[in-house]
């Protein structure tokens, strides 16, 4: 019995080792679970939109709810001009949500508990939003770093501060998701280990904690996907509308 709480985060390769130009591109358990979540999302949306009935079946209801949920989120935070980014934000939200939720199943692997995965997602958002901002506003996008009503003496300091806070966006986006998922799963494993080591006599209390934590973790898994998507919308809004 492996009681090490960090053991669940280990990445190991499945199948042969693939080396391409010095890059290790082997298929790992992380890749496997990413593919599983992508396939599950595709299946859900495929079967959810297959039979379009006036009175929806359960699977159609889930599909429609996820659509309206994301569409409403974009409309509320980024305005109607961001409608064309719906596919991107929807895919991002569904991917993070499914990765988080699949991680809640026993014997599975939580892809989002690795900072490299979340940072890659956040970097895509960050670079994409910056490019959109420059395409839309040209050089005037740099006005984002100059808040209104600041005395000229303070301007150099304020610009440095603004640049740091702009650069901190991908960091906070990725660290938030990664830290929440990793901390939650470590806690679950620690309490699970207590149940085993305390046995029949004292194991009931940590078992209760474990059950409660599982509920909390499911909430956090959903919430983190939601926060990730909504912050993407907010950053998109900054890039599209250029005022804070």
């Amino acid at each position, binding site marked *: 019995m492996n009681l090490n709480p960090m053991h669940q985060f280990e990445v190991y390769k499945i199948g042969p080792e693939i080396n391409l130009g010095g890059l290790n591109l082997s298929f790992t358990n992380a890749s496997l679970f990413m593919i599983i979540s992508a396939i599950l999302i595709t299946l859900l949306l495929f079967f959810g939109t297959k039979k379009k009935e006036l009175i929806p079946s359960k699977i159609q209801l889930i599909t429609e709810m996820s659509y309206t949920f994301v569409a409403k989120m974009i409309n509320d935070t980024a305005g109607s001009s961001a409608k064309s980014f719906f596919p991107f934000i929807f895919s991002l939200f569904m991917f993070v949500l499914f990765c988080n939720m699949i991680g809640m199943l026993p014997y599975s692997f939580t892809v989002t508990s690795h900072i490299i995965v979340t940072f890659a997602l956040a970097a895509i958002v960050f670079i994409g939003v910056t490019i959109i901002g420059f395409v839309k506003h040209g050089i005037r996008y740099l006005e984002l770093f100059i808040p209104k009503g600041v005395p000229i003496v303070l301007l150099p*300091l304020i610009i*440095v*501060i*603004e640049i*740091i*806070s702009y*650069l*901190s*966006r991908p*960091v*906070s986006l990725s*660290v*938030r998701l990664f*830290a*929440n998922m990793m901390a939650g799963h470590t806690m679950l494993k620690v309490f699970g280990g207590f149940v085993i080591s305390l046995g029949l006599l004292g194991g009931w209390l940590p078992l209760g904690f474990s059950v409660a934590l599982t509920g909390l973790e499911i*909430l956090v898994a*959903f*919430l*983190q996907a*939601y*926060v990730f998507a*909504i*912050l993407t919308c907010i950053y998109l809004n900054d890039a599209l509308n250029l005022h*804070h």
Partner: protein
Amino acid sequence: MKNFKEISARLEIAKKNIKNIQENNKGSNAASFGKALKISTELVATVVVGTTIGFLLDNWFDTKPLLIICFFFIGVVAGIRNVFRSARKMYEK
């Protein structure tokens, strides 16, 4: 004609109900939990980014440990500013 009037009146009431539900849902518990998480990481992230920039510039200009100290404090200021800004946004909503 009477039917039409009745239907439009009902529609009006239904629309009002939907609006009320939407307004009530704005400050739900899960959303506030999300906001709390957002603010707490924002503060940390700016400090980390500021310190990293200071470290890199120090290596570049060979001015250890001057810039790392400066940029650490700038990072702290940026973090507090970010938190203030998010809090104000929430308050205005």
